[in-house]
């Protein structure tokens, strides 16, 4: 097709590689090579600009085969398996819909590659609820942004599009107060365009629940005997408490993958407790960054189709949810899973976990696998190789991602549709 060799320019393109789905990319495509003109985000550049490998053929045991043969083999693996794990789930709405249809039919289990982080939020939310906000609200309302346990440097678009936006309806963005709570953080992105520096309160990240609970105590007017808690000075926390109470619309920002300690849902719960307490008299909200690799999308679709945010088993014929037992890790280590499908079409380096059970990888075409799976089917990336729909990290906004090139790679949805037909 000639159109693939002609240079084409696109503007206002949504970015499927970022959980915040920024939709302002300027992109040119010539001869199926994609170039992003206006980003400094390395994940975005790497995602869009990776070259199509020469060999786009599906493989069985490392040998090229037709798509039909690969699908037949993948189907036979499902049929032989008593419990197939559908993991990764790095795909768009349509891909997730069709994976769930197959998993439901065959009594499989579904889990997203980033569910460990997602569950830190979900467990806190389903325990006591929470008070949250979205990107446009932060951009226009927030006069104080508190980063908890994250410097959010991997979310550069949050900084340039939201935190330091050129304009806002109700605040002067350059005057926003920024606070960091955590350690080993690059706080430079928290310096306002006018040079206003952020407040940094060093603290031990695994101690965040107790640090936040102490902040909550200070906010409610209690005095604490300790001078420090989880490295953080009580005097610093008191100043923070005062700052928050003086704010019109404070936002606590965290990133679940950065809360990598046991029972980290307690940190999310503690932040939510503070927000609930403050909301009695003022407006405060939370915002969770993340949602990349289609996590927000997978969680949304799974929730609306089953009632549960992944980690769902259909083995009993109905959706059974268990946030630990049906994790990919547990499914493999406890040998519950008899076969694994790994779906990952966004970032190249999200490789399947090592396992001896039969494995089908449906992934980004250039994926460098460490071991040869039983079946490999190169699939298109939504927003590059085909259009699709994706859910943003705040679980409110969803966007249509676009087709930019003519790779001919099949979508995950079409692959699972064929598998469903073959079952």
């Amino acid at each position: 097709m000639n159109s693939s060799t002609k240079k084409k320019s696109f503007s206002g393109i949504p970015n499927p590689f970022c959980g915040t789905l920024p939709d302002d990319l300027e992109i040119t495509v010539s001869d199926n090579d994609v170039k992003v003109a206006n980003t400094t985000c390395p994940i975005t550049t790497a995602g869009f600009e990776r070259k199509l490998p020469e060999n786009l053929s599906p493989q069985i045991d490392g040998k090229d085969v037709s798509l039909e043969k690969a699908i037949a083999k993948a189907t036979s693996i499902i049929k032989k398996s008593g419990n197939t794990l559908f993991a990764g789930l790095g795909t768009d709405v349509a891909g997730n819909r069709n994976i769930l249809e197959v998993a439901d039919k065959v009594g499989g289990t579904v889990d997203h590659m980033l569910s460990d982080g997602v569950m830190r939020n979900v467990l806190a939310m389903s325990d006591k609820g929470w008070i949250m906000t979205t990107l446009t609200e932060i951009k226009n309302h927030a006069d104080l942004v508190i980063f908890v346990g994250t410097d959010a440097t991997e979310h550069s678009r949050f900084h340039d599009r939201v935190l330091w936006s050129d304009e806002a309806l109700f605040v002067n963005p350059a005057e926003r107060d920024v606070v960091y709570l955590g350690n080993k953080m690059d706080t430079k992105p928290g310096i306002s365009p006018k040079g206003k520096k952020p407040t940094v309160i060093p603290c031990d990240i695994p101690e965040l629940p107790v640090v936040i609970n102490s902040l909550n105590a200070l906010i409610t007017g209690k005095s604490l005997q300790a001078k420090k808690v989880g490295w953080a000075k009580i005097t610093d926390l008191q100043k923070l408490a005062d700052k928050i109470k003086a704010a019109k619309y404070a936002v606590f920002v965290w990133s679940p993958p950065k809360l990598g300690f046991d029972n980290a849902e307690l940190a999310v719960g503690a932040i939510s407790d503070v927000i609930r307490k403050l909301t009695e008299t003022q407006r405060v909200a939370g915002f969770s960054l993340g949602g990349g690799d289609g996590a927000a999308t997978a969680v949304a679709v799974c929730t609306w189709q089953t009632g549960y945010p992944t980690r769902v088993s259909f083995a009993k014929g109905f959706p059974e949810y268990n946030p630990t037992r049906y994790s990919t890790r547990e499914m493999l280590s406890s040998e519950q899973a008899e076969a694994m499908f790994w779906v990952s079409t966004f970032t190249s380096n999200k490789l399947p976990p090592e396992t001896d059970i039969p494995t089908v990888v449906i992934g980004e075409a250039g994926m460098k696998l460490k071991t040869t799976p039983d079946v490999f089917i190169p699939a298109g990336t939504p927003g590059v190789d085909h259009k699709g729909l994706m859910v943003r990290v705040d679980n409110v906004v969803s966007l249509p991602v676009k087709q930019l090139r003519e790779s001919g790679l099949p979508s995950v949805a079409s692959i699972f549709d064929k598998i469903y037909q073959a079952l």
Partner: protein
Amino acid sequence: MLIKLAGGKVYDPMHGINGQIKDIYIRDGRIVDKPSKDETIHETYDVKGRVIMAGGIDPHTHIGGGKVNIARMMMPEDHEQDLVKHTPLTRAGCGHAAPSTLTTGYRYVEMGYTSGFEPAMLQSNARQAHMEMADMPILDKGGYVMLGNDDMFMRMLAEGVEREVMNNYVGWTISNFNAIAVKVVNPGGISAFKFNQRQLDLDEKHTYYEITPRDVLKTLSRSLVDLKVPHPLHVHGCNLGVPGNVETTLDTIRGMDGLPLHLTHIQFHSFATEGDKHFSSGAARIAELVNKHKNISIDVGQIMFGQTVTASGDTMRQYAGHSHGSPKKYVLMDIECDNGCGVVPFKYSDKSFVNALQWAIGLETFLMVDDPWRVFLTTDHPNGAPFTSYPHLIRLLMDRSFRNDMLHTINKEAADMTVLGSIDREYSLYEIAIMTRAAPAKSLGLTDRGQLGAGSAADITVYKEMDNKEKMFEKPEYVFKDGNLVAKNGKIVKITRGTTHVIKPDYDKSIEKPLNEFFKKYHTVALDNLVVSEDEIIDEGRGSITQHNCSREGTNA
């Protein structure tokens, strides 16, 4: 393919047919006149003695979109009691208060309903609402797009833009989010809550924009009239759940200068303050005024006793009410300088004075509003109760002795304070057919639904007539969707795909310039990416769009 339903008792209020014995013919998904004698009838259903109505239409049910998905995620323990196994034909899922999308579709259809309308579709969440509704098999659907709290609207109103400019914005919104109506929730109040205002009465000013809920209601209602949108402005009023809010509701009705309004889940807005507990029924006063004002239609939002979850755009009132919730958890969200949502689980108890009186207030309203064309049967699913409680509600309306038995079981003080026991009225099948089919269809401008005339879609429900109306309405014998037999004796027998009902008002595209500029400056999504294209809904044949005339001819109010 020609199908005959032979000898049923037909209830088709749109044509004044009240239980007459009549054959119905279906060809290619549509109801047709009696064919000529030489035509072959391919299939005949003997429905002698059966009650036949058009498929049910739920004009206010929270079935899809972000807040429903939050409710699902927050309520894993509620799903446990109603996990749904897959069958060779149907998918697995969960039911009860916050059912999964697929189960929602099956359960509505099994109950004889063939259309459901999501009443709270945000611009910023419209795509997801449509995606979720697309995953509901068989059922037709549609959405009411929310306006009246978004900063674009608030600014335009505060700046006093010309009426035509506002109309263009409203028309643009309906068209570009593929909606069929417009809803406003706590007019201006969701926005005010973002500025820490904790209440906003009908004539109270928003602290930032300095406009009142009355301004918002009048402006939106007038725009919809100008644009000839069939359904009146769908209003979730001020002060939801506040004792004494009946005054606000009465003021709202009186103050519209004849402009049409649909007041939704009015039960939650009919509280007076008499008695020792300063909580009493305002239903009689509401009904009296509704009876007088032909520009007003309502739905009730009946509560039923048991666990449910409330999901609303009304952050201000959901926050205020969360302490009454159970289990003790709630989600609140400010959304995109557009709207908000609050999700609070509730367990309504028949032994609670307030809950028992709410139950009675809802029923009083149903029974005291004279004109069934202006009162629609809803529980505001899932806010008052899950939609699966409709058969029970219908029995309460149709069976006085059953209703009075139930009245004896509720909180004694509440029972003593309601006039319910003195109301003799029993709804007839004809009236039930009006309030669950004909009236919502007429109100929404669905000219070929909610009725059984030639040319209508063959969405038809066949019931075995029984004394126990709950049993009768629970599991219809046959449900046809677009002429396909889709459910039999309360079980799905065929999967089809429903359509999405929309209207497309005329508006001047010049509105897109200021909108684009506003979104570019202040939003985090470009306008082009925010709007929902028809192609997305059609989705290569997974869905379809049915566009109805944008005309107010023949509407209720």
